[in-house]
Each structure stands twice: as structure tokens, then as C-alpha cells.
């Protein structure tokens, strides 16, 4: 679990265009408020999550509530990984 969280956070830190330099992402920080979530970042994030964690994210999961914090993303991964 910890490992998933670290991977997700690292991905966000290295790909999100942040509004202020040197930001630190806490697990419950709203990433839409800390950085500029554009189409390319959104696509990169989805592709990363699908490939890295071998899950499929459908239209029904695309709600921003599922992507707004590190914790919510981890929760989404967890939900999908449990389905076999």
C-alpha cells in the first residue's frame, strides 16, 4: 500500500505543472488546487495508472473526485485491483 502511494506521489511530483515552485504534496492535498491539471497531464496520469497498476479506468471512474488527491487515486487503484 505504501509503495503504491509513493509511486503515485512521485508521478504527480514529476509531471504536474505546479503553481508554486517547491511544493510538497501531502496525501490529502487537492492537486487541482496546487497545479495546473491540463489535458496532457490527465492523459499521462491515466495511462500511467493503467500501465503501472494493470487496471482499466473506464468513463464511469473519470470523476475528478477520484483524482483530486494522492489518497483518492490510491483508493481508485485499490478498488480496481481487488476486482479479479
Amino acid at each position, binding site marked *: 500500500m505504501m509503495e503504491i502511494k509513493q509511486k503515485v506521489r512521485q508521478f504527480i511530483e514529476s509531471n504536474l505543472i505546479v503553481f508554486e515552485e517547491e511544493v510538497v504534496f501531502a496525501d490529502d492535498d487537492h492537486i487541482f488546487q496546487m497545479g495546473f491539471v491540463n489535458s*496532457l497531464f490527465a492523459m499521462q496520469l491515466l495511462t500511467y495508472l493503467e500501465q503501472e497498476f494493470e487496471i482499466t479506468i473506464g468513463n464511469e471512474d473519470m470523476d475528478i473526485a477520484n483524482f483530486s488527491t494522492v489518497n483518492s487515486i490510491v483508493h481508485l487503484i485499490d478498488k480496481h485491483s481487488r476486482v479479479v
Partner: protein
Amino acid sequence: MEKNEDKRKEIKCVVWDLDHTIWNGVLLESDEVELKAGIREIIAELDARGILHSIASKNDAETAMDKLRELGIDHYFLYPEINWSAKSLSISCISTNLNIGRDTILFIDDQIFERDEVKSEHPDVTCLDAAEYMSLLDNPRLNPRFITEDSLRRRTMYLEDIKRKKEEDSYKGPKESFLRSLDMKFVISEAREEDLKRAEELTIRTNQLNATGYTYSYEQLDRFRQSSDHLLLVCELTDKYGSYGKIGLALLELKPTHWHLKLLLMSCRVMSRGVGTVILTYIMQQAKNKGKRLQADFKQTDRNKMMYVTYRFANFKEISNDEQGQILFENELDQIQPFPPYLEVKVAVAGRQA
């Protein structure tokens, strides 16, 4: 060529073989190759129509580029693939580098083997026997209805993109400081009459970043432009390298209770700059200020997932979906992304009553 040719997509790039196609003879056998009659003029004319050129040739890259320079036509070709790999692979690379669909590529080669190899890997690429090159200028798919300022500058704009990409790849610092260094300006304005040709061209050329796939004619767009219950917006992006041209288009229907976004599209060339989100932010802010609800039509295709994601991440929610891909979105307007800090947004839109 097949009869139904006209119905297929406009060609955005012609990919040329070299030996026995652009010139007579085989370069590695004789340095004395000559351009085929009329080729220079055909290439120049297509270029002026805004159609790009590239190369897929099995040759020695340096020798071939030297020859093209000597012939004075090297500057026409973007991302030339001169190597010994399969031409289907070369075409994949060109399609990726230019970020255009393979169904908008015309491949010209004198050898049936090469055409068949490309065809078998990429059935969506159109192949033409080099013997038929004189027919090119009359091919309807190489005759765009309008030649716009953007089509005239298209090759230059791609060259500017190559420069940007090089600088971006070699830039070591954080992404946002690179973006800031580009000095980007994004101008949103109401479409004027002279923008309509480009607007029609955008609706026809844009696939990946097109929300509805609707294509509108010049005349229809002109009616929307003049109609008091519609707002037709065009976006232009410039940076320190030059102008990306008119790269975005949005059509809003202004109803008493809500605004309805009928069309939103962005040129693929600006994908990495976040401008799709910027125009959505602008529209959302305006709708919110005027106290309107905001709805948007969407047609999901196998090519526009990026656009679907753009809407969803801008907090649009599906309120209906006919399972055929036709979706109606609505946005509560309670969470609006600010404009990105690396981009200056200028708005030139007169106030509307509706």
C-alpha cells in the same frame, strides 16, 4: 485510385520515396540523378496549399540529404526517414512526429513491393504509384477548399515546433519554468469574417481534440458568427518562436437559462500547452459570471479520448449518454481551474446580453 476517393479525409502530408520517384535513377549507383519533370513545381504548389512533405526512402541518409540540398528542395521535407528499415515503420515515425493520423498520409513509391508492405501494415495510408505523380495537383484530397493564412505558414509552423521540441528536450529545469520561458500569449476573440475559412479548416482537420466531430461549413459558421444567440470564439497562441496560428475554436449557443457548448476543438500541435483547459476555464468563468448553467455536447469516438478526459477533469459530468457515444455534459461551475501561471491570456470579446 478508387472512385470514392473524394469522401476520404484531406491529405495532410505526402510521403515521397526518392529513387525513381522524386528523381530518375538510383542515387547510390549514380550521382547524376535528375528530378523528374515537373516535380519541383508540384512539391512547391502542394506546399503552398498547406500540405506537408516528408520522405520514406531506403538510402544513405547523408548522401540523399546532400543531393536534396544540391537540388534546392531539402527545406520542404519534415522529419525525413532515410534509412534501411521497413517503410511502414518510417511512416509510423512520420505520423507520430507530425502528430497526424495515418489516414491523412499519401505515400508515393515506384515499387509495388513497398506500397504493398505499407498497405499491409497500415491499411489506412493511401498509396500511389510514382508513375501517376502528374495527377497529384488535381487530386481532390490535395485540394483544400480554402488556402488560409495558417495553411500558407504550416511548414514554417512545424519547423518552429521542431525548434521548440529540441529546446524542451534539452531543458533540464522544472517544466513550469520552461513553459514560462516561452513567453506564451493566448488570445481569445470573437470570430471575424476573415477567421471563418480557418475555422472551417479546423473543423475538418481536427480529430483527436474535437469534442463533437461536427463539421461546419463556412456559410454555417458565418451565420453563427452573426447570430445574437451564438458566440463563435477563436483562439490564437503565440510564443517567443512565433505564432502557432489560430489553433482553437468554440461554438456556444446562448440560451436564456443556460449556455450550450456545441463545438470545442484544438489543433493537436498545441496539446502539450494546456490550452484546451484554458478555453474551457474561460467559458466556465463567463457562464458563472452571467449566472447561466453550462452544458456541452460530446461525441465519443475512438480518437478523441483526450478531449473526453479534458472535459471530465474540468469537472463536467455526464447527464445523458445514449451508449452510441453521444453524451450531454453539464458543469456545476463550482470548481474552476485558474489560468495556468505560465501563460498570458488576453480576451477580446464584446459583452453579450443573452
